């Protein structure tokens, strides 16, 4: 994936201090801190070419990214992560509001991001639906009442589920899947969960509720007692040898599948097209309980002003212009202005990724490898069908501090198990 800091850093900047004019010969530099979900080398090169600036990516893992975005806000200009990370980063005072009047495509951003669902009749989903963190309210908090200023420009998003081995769970098709499979006795010893607490804990909770072990009053905002019950259940299952381990990066998840060590695990796009011989054996589920969704975006660092701020707005506007959305689509992610993306995709690509049509030819991923074979259909169907079935959003819930510590202890215990 994209590399860290290729060009020299600019001179030390101090908060509130005007930036010195860039040296005559050098191009202007924009520093972007984010994760490998959106910081793709293909995106960076295209943006550099279109905007005529140098862009330096700093790619971090999920936890480090949100932590350093909050604690070290002078070291970047743009922060790209997810809406559920904003509770930590926004309230730490690291970001500045984005003026929607300066976002050219603002009107074309879809209602999933701006209103909470693709139509007013759609259920928003439990947890941190992006609209609940989108608008900057007059008292400085984030809320869903529309305001001219926003916290994060909504960009890439997707709905996730889990992956399963159809040799074990049968061939009834992905639509027959249930989150219950993620803690299914049939897969004992061959189950893996993602390490990240804001995601993994919900995969486990959805599974525990689907198989009837536990019920949550609000699965997107668990109480201390509910967290205790969930962790106790997971610990019991761990002692019974249910789990083969946890994974930190999608590459680790893919390796476990290629080595045939898992039958069901936390997983998401684009891993399904990196499975080698296991492609077609290990499938993306369409759980009947609904998806676990996430929504990415880009925010402005608090220290930006003047020409640097203008450059940052150019970059935000570029994100919605279309080419970036096309790259995102090829790894299975949606963009908020879908129609703008359409003209940068072939009709076959648009049909497969957005419309849920059968692929009429082989389709390539962002790096040029073939990721979809002719004749395949995207599990879950078209955009509207998939995002209409969101059970829950990735969430940093109220008891996150308590839950994440309990989760970390569980993951550490998993790691000590000989594999």
């Amino acid at each position, binding site marked *: 994936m994209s590399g860290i800091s290729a060009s020299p850093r600019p001179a030390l900047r101090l908060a509130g201090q005007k930036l010195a004019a860039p040296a005559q010969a050098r191009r202007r530099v924009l520093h972007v801190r984010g994760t490998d979900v959106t910081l793709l080398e293909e995106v960076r090169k295209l943006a550099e070419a279109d905007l005529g600036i140098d862009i330096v990516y700093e790619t971090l893992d999920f*936890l480090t990214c*949100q*932590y350093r975005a909050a604690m070290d806000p002078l070291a970047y200009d743009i922060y790209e992560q997810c809406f559920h990370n904003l509770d*930590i980063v926004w309230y*730490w*005072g690291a970001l500045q509001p984005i003026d929607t009047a300066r976002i050219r495509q603002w009107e074309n951003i879809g209602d999933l991001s701006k209103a909470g669902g693709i139509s007013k009749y759609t259920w928003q989903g439990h947890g941190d639906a992006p609209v609940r963190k989108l608008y900057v309210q007059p008292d*400085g*908090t984030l809320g869903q009442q529309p305001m001219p200023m926003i916290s994060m420009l909504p960009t890439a998003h997707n709905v996730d589920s889990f992956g399963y081995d159809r040799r074990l769970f049968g061939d009834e098709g992905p639509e027959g899947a249930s989150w219950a499979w993620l803690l299914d006795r049939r897969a004992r010893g061959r189950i893996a969960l993602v390490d990240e607490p804001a995601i993994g804990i919900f995969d486990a909770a959805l599974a525990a509720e689907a198989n009837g072990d536990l019920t949550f009053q609000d699965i997107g905002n668990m*109480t201390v007692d509910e967290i205790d019950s969930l962790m106790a259940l997971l610990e019991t299952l761990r002692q019974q040898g249910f789990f083969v381990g946890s994974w930190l990066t999608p590459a680790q998840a893919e390796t476990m599948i290629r080595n045939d060590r898992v039958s069901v695990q936390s997983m998401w796009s684009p891993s399904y097209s990196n499975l080698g011989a296991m492609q077609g054996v290990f499938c993306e589920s369409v759980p009947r309980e609904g998806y676990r969704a996430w929504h990415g975006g880009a925010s402005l660092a608090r220290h930006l002003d003047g020409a640097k701020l203008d450059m940052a707005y150019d970059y935000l506007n570029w994100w919605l212009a279309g080419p970036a959305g096309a790259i995102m689509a090829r790894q299975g992610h949606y963009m908020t202005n879908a129609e703008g993306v359409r003209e940068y995709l072939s009709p076959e690509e648009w049909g497969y990724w957005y419309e849920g049509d059968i692929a009429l030819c082989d389709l390539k991923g962002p790096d040029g490898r073939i990721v979809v074979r002719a004749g395949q259909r995207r599990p879950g169907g078209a955009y509207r069908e998939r995002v209409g079935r969101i059970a829950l959003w990735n969430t940093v819930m109220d*008891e996150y501090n308590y839950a994440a510590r309990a989760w970390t202890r569980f993951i550490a215990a998993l790691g000590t198990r000989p594999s």
Partner: protein
Amino acid sequence: MTPKPAPQGQEPLYETIARVLRHNIVSGRLPEGLVLVEGPIAKLMQTSRAPVQASLRMLNAEGLIHRFRGRGYLVGRASRGPAPIRRPLDDFDFDIPAASQSALAVRGTWLRVYDRVEAEIAACQIFGEFRVIETELANHLGVSRTVARDVLSRLNERGLIRKGAASNWLAGPLTARTLQEKFELRSIMEPAALRLAADFIDYGQIARVLAQINTGQTKDAAELEDALMRFCLGRAPNAALIEVITNNRLLLSAMDKALSDLGLPVDTVALDQYGALFQLIGARQINAATAFLQEHLRILSYKSLARLKIVALIPESESLPKYLSKV
């Protein structure tokens, strides 16, 4: 309010101080009309001002002293209208009975260590649940186990630690639920205290706080929160209410301090809100001020909850004192 029948070593400090003052007034050592202000009394008894304030409010309620147009209280009943006598307490035959003296001295030893332990125990709770080990605490402080136990029972009274099933002392964890409960309590009690205090607030003092805000001398919200407590809520003529408010704030202030030590920038929105609050209080718009305080606390609760989440990403401080062990 009536003092609880408790042994002198464990009674609240303000009761010990009230006992000493009462003794000196009733025995005629302090003349009618003598002006009592908290500063010199605190110095004489080697305590802080807060318990002296509380004890003066008690004696006022008992009718032994009364408020007058100046600062402080006058000895004697208001009905007799004595002329104020302003002289240092040293001029009189002020007597501290032996029993009270030893109570004050014991206070001295453990007051010295108490504040530090209180800060450490309050601060650790954002990192989860801890057992407090009494013997380790005594070693850590270089005091006897009796003093360590006194410190622990005081922490227990103030709601910072509790007894576990195995009769051991437990602290934390500070969960979102605890935080929300504490803010809910604040929004019930603090506006009520402000209302009660309206007639006792020194409005000259409020003007000085406002001047400091307007000239940009006030740098963080914690300073103004403290001023609100000292100059407004703390003036409510209800010592029990003030004590509950103070105790309820302990964990929250410790969390704020821990977050600010981690580098949380100044919350300018909160600063502005305190500014607006002091404006309302300064204008004696007490109804508006209590409503505003309630709304301010709601927003603060929401923001504190979000800020607490970052702590999940921070490993427990390695500098945690040895007497705390992770549960």
